[in-house]
């Protein structure tokens, strides 16, 4: 047979580039995802942040505009992580795309990596929209170092939420994923003080919020813009790391469960 090729594999680099651009286009072309994740944070910022942007937080010289920018940065990046993974994983399971992909020589690691890169690029894009908006419309002025610290902390701190998105994607159906995520995400965002400072929340919720991953994530952001937080940044990172490990464990469990049902 002249047509028989030598046993070789395709190079992973170009594969990763193609896969990542495909994953990106898939999300970009769904306005329900791309428009809401890019524009919703600035809409919230316009409604809640701008009116009182120049008021200082009680007992500090930090402006509310900067404080709320940190809140929205955390909100929007975690939102991208959970939604992009949760919905795309659930949808592909629903369409059985995962079955076809499994029969191709695409290494699972490349698949996973392309997803992570896409989510991080999307998250960076939301920041690229939110930061200038807060600067221009909210008059937020930070040191260069503070902008940078805020950006890298919210990108790095979002890793546990990637795992959470994965877990939800494997545990919920293609049609219920959005509802499940909204039911979990929006209330916890409120309870973590991302929309209104924690002090304004009912006392019972104030007692819960320190244990919420989004609250810890929020603290990293608030600290980056100089707002006071309840514990040290190290404590917040440790909390997030703990949640990250727990979410990854759940995601792996959910993945394996799926594996043994569909592919054993």
């Amino acid at each position, binding site marked *: 047979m002249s047509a028989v090729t030598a046993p070789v*594999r*395709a190079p992973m680099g170009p594969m990763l580039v193609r896969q990542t651009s495909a994953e990106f286009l*898939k999300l970009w072309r769904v306005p329900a995802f791309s428009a809401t994740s890019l524009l919703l944070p600035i809409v919230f910022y316009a409604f809640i942040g701008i009116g009182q942007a120049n008021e200082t937080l009680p007992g500090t010289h930090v402006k509310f505009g900067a404080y709320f920018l940190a809140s929205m940065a955390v909100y929007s990046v975690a939102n991208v992580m959970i939604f992009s993974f949760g919905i795309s994983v659930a949808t592909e399971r629903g*369409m059985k*795309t995962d079955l*076809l992909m499994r029969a191709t*020589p695409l290494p699972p690691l490349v698949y996973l990596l392309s997803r992570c890169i896409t989510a991080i690029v999307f998250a960076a894009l939301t920041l690229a929209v939110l930061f200038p908006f807060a600067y221009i419309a909210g008059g937020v002025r930070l040191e260069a170092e503070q902008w940078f610290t805020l950006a890298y902390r919210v990108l790095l701190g979002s890793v546990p939420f990637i795992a959470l998105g994965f877990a939800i994607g494997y545990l919920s159906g293609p049609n219920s994923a959005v509802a499940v995520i909204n039911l979990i995400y929006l209330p916890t965002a409120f309870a973590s003080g991302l929309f209104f400072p924690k002090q304004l929340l009912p006392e019972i919720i104030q007692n819960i919020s320190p244990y919420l991953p989004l609250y810890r994530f929020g603290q990293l952001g608030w600290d980056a813009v100089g707002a006071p937080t309840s514990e040290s940044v190290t404590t917040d990172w440790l909390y997030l790391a703990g949640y990250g490990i727990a979410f990854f464990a759940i995601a792996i469990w959910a993945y394996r469960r799926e594996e043994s049902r569909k592919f*054993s």
Partner: protein
Amino acid sequence: MAPAAQLVDATKKYGSVEALKGVSFEIELGDVVAMLGPNGAGKTTAISLLLGLRKPTSGKALLFGLEPTNLLARSRVGVMLQESGVPGMLKVSEIVDLFRSYYPVPLPRDRAIAMAGLEEKAGSLVKELSGGQRQRLYFALAVCGNPDVLFLDEPTVGMDVEGRRSFIERIAEFAKLGRTVVLTTHYLEEADQLAKRVIVIDRGLVIADAPPAEIKSKVAGKRVRFNAPTLDQKDLEGLPVSAVTSRDHGVQLLTNQPEAVLRELFRRGVDISELEVSGADLEDAFIALTTHPAKATQ
């Protein structure tokens, strides 16, 4: 050299259901093989084992002598699965390029798209394709990696007659390049047009493995239906028919010689109305053959 694909005494249980009960066959490079059998016979399970999508409960499945999950083996295989969707928000050309990037020596993009007859839809989003176009896209994705072996699980399911005919031609063109093709189907005519070898699977077992002509000769090719209120069992005695069923006054039977059977029935004075003769698909025939093996006459 190791065979392109191989099952060695493979069994597969889903819970208490035994989908494969010890199946062995070897498919050499260049073979064009059709796996035939009724729904639920175990064809898809056999393909799933060969693709590493399922693990055999016992026995072995091998691709090029390797585990089917080995990426070296998978790099030489193209796949078209039943009912597996692809993302709707990518363009045809984009998803073909994506799948090409998985393979070491892919076909040029335009060639893969042309082989599937999708030139005019190359710039369209996948979600805009019709059912038949989608099926052709899956074919493009299966061949775009320039695979040595092509697995097609029920590739023409849901297509109309014309769609099936042209699709079979596309598969035949690919096979002409000297490639190995393994397809499952329950249409005898497809197997007949394409395959040099037919593996018949029924209830988890290989019941025949031979060239199509040989298989066909074992199967009654026409289904005859008519109404005959006065027919009794003795009117059919000695006739080359099988799988006779009757309900109310309607009678259905399978035969390779419909003309001879009908001539004899008229001669015997059976009162026949609403006569209908059609090609039995293999599924009917196999169900008949396997449920009434003693009555199968030739």
